[in-house]
């Protein structure tokens, strides 16, 4: 594995977007950054700027209003990028499945790499998800190398 690839795995900067969630998962994302869970161990920084982010953490179901924002943010992130759908409602719409303004999971709008079930998810699950996402990235890099 090249140095650059290693760096890509060691430094996932995240962009968090609340896509109409109930805040439950958002506060758990924030909690994951705090001393007890400390996502920065993995080099994760909540960067807040799509242009510098590698991982998009989406919470909440996509709805008819905010899907264009989600799309925009995704488009403003340079490759390689990953999307993690955090929480049941980001995966499928969950408890909001029959709300009239809800489109369902965020995968209706942007391609999702990792789904995290839970309502709200636990910080440990977020850590697991990031690890999974990075594995995927490593896999991608590997397969590119083989080509």
């Amino acid at each position, binding site marked *: 594995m090249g140095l650059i690839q290693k760096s890509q795995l060691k430094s996932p900067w995240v962009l968090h977007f609340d896509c109409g969630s109930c805040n439950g998962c958002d506060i758990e994302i924030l909690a994951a950054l705090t001393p007890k869970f400390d996502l920065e161990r993995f080099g994760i920084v909540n960067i807040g700027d799509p242009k510098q982010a590698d991982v998009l953490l989406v919470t909440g179901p996509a709805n008819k209003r905010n899907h*264009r924002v989600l799309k925009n943010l995704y488009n*403003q992130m340079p490759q390689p990028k990953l999307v993690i759908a955090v929480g049941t409602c980001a995966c499928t719409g969950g408890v909001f499945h029959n709300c009239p303004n809800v489109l369902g999971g965020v995968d209706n709008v942007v391609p999702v790499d990792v789904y995290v079930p839970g309502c709200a998810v636990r910080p440990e699950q977020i850590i697991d998800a990031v690890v999974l996402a990075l594995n995927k990235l490593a896999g991608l890099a590997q397969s590119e190398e083989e080509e």
Partner: protein
Amino acid sequence: MAIYGQTLVALTVGLPVVSGLASLVLPGKTIRSVLVSVTALVLIGSSVSLLGISEFTYNPGHIYETAVLVLDFALLFYFLYVGMKSKSLPVIGLSLLQLVPVAYFEFVLHGVKVENILLVDRLSVFLVLIVNVVGSVVVVYALSYMEEHEHHLQLKESRQGRFFFFMLLLLGAMNGMVYSNSLYWLYFFWEITSLCCYELIRHDGTAEANTNAVTALWMALIGGVAFIGTMFVGYYTVGSIALTKIMTAQLTPILLVGFAFLALAAFSKSAQFPFHSWLLGAMVAPTPVSALLHSSTMVNAGIYLILRIAPALKGTYLSLVIAAVGAVTFTLTAILAIRQKVSKRVLAFSTIGNLGLIIMCAGINTSLSYTAAVILLFFHSISKGLLFMGAGVVENRINSRNIEDWEGLIGKLPFTTTVMLVGMATMFLPPFGMLLGKWVAVDAIISTPLAFALPIIILICIGSAATTFFWGKWLGYLTVTPMTAQKQVKETLPTPYRFAMMGLLAVSIVFSAGAPYIINNFVNPLIGEAYKLSVTSTLMEVNTGIGSFLVGPFWIATVAMVLLGVMITKKKGGVIVPAYLGGENVPEKPLMFFTTADGEAEASVSTVMLQSEIDEASLNKFAVIIGVLLIIVMFLVEVI
């Protein structure tokens, strides 16, 4: 040799006057263009030729002396007339204050007789070079500018003849002034520059132009009165009004008062506090006028005078006060410049500030500081000429002087803007000449006694940070362009514009890069006449003994860096993406975002002016008060 020199002197003084008169009389655009261009070329040529000449003094024919006398009185009466016509008490009073004493001095005392009326030495040649090279370029530039200007004003009848007459006359008068050794001649040419300035400011004939011109006139007349004061002092103490005599005489308090008068005259011309308002008011004139006034003529007259007398004042308190005036002016104008909206006002404040810096250096009056002053003067003239010309072009193109309208100019006027950007950089960034000058100045300050240097150090620290601030934010504002969509914009410019701007730009860059050469060949010989040399410069390096400025390596590194940067960024390339707008970007419209009720709004940026933090009115008041106080101190100092 001497004859050759005298011819050149006559040429530089006489030719502008003659061709000015010709342009006044002869009609037609082509004739005027040819006339002006040829004059410009000859002026540049003869001033460069003067470089090879060693110092000499001489008296022109008696007829010239008489002519000067007659013309001087004519001039004073004209000023009186202007004063009455515009009902301006200061002008009337100040003209009378000159008429009467001059008459007394001339007819009763017969004091104007001087051995060596003209003196051509290193300093005057240096000044002549600046005046003619930069001045000529500006005059050529004015050819295009005035066409457009009159087009904008929709004038029926061209008034350009008059305009170029005064422009050229101003050059001639400046040349005459720097050659003059007789205070009376100096005074005469001085008054002519005041006249030209007055006429040029009111050129457009608007009410505002007229009032500002009158203000400029009375402030300039203060200088005239001060000159007369010095003449009397000279006559009574030394018995001569030759500068050479006065300067070599034993310093007595009375003589110092005479020098104080000269300093006062210089302040008024160089728009130091409290006289800064005339230069700001002069903005109403067509831009080439500003370019000329600010860069090579007019304000430089004051600087010249200070530089001329400085060696005589070494170690006096008067010198310190002069430095204080300069330092205060430098700092306050830099702060004031931050909040200016009108492009030319920013430039004007910068001019006043830089003149302040030069005067401060002259006032500190060590070999090192004097060197700094000369370097600053040299590079300031070039850069300021360049900037004003650029500002003029922009003004005519976008029809506004408000720098808020300059946003992203680089997308609209790539050529002019690039010239402006480099021009601005030459004003305050390394490795350009102005910064070299400033750097020498700092070295100079710290090599003076602390008790005196400390206030000045603080003023300089603040002033130079503020300078960086106001230039930088303006420079940055020109580049505010989100996309390179308008990249294809081709700018068409008349040749004189292109020639003038490119010419000065090239001069500025080449001379900055060749600063050690300039210092060795122009500056140091000049310093050597009055001081012990303190700056040594080799091919690559300028060394003050306190620090060393590696001009060559710096330039090489900079150029290498730019090339490398272009290479790497070209190779990396990149996809241009719209700005971050919280995710609500409107597709295909780079600066729009969705807002309430799905409406589209445009993101915009303002300029940086700290308008609520800097209180211009009270700062201005403060400036005037401190200026007046310092001048009072300047006269009181001798008594102590």
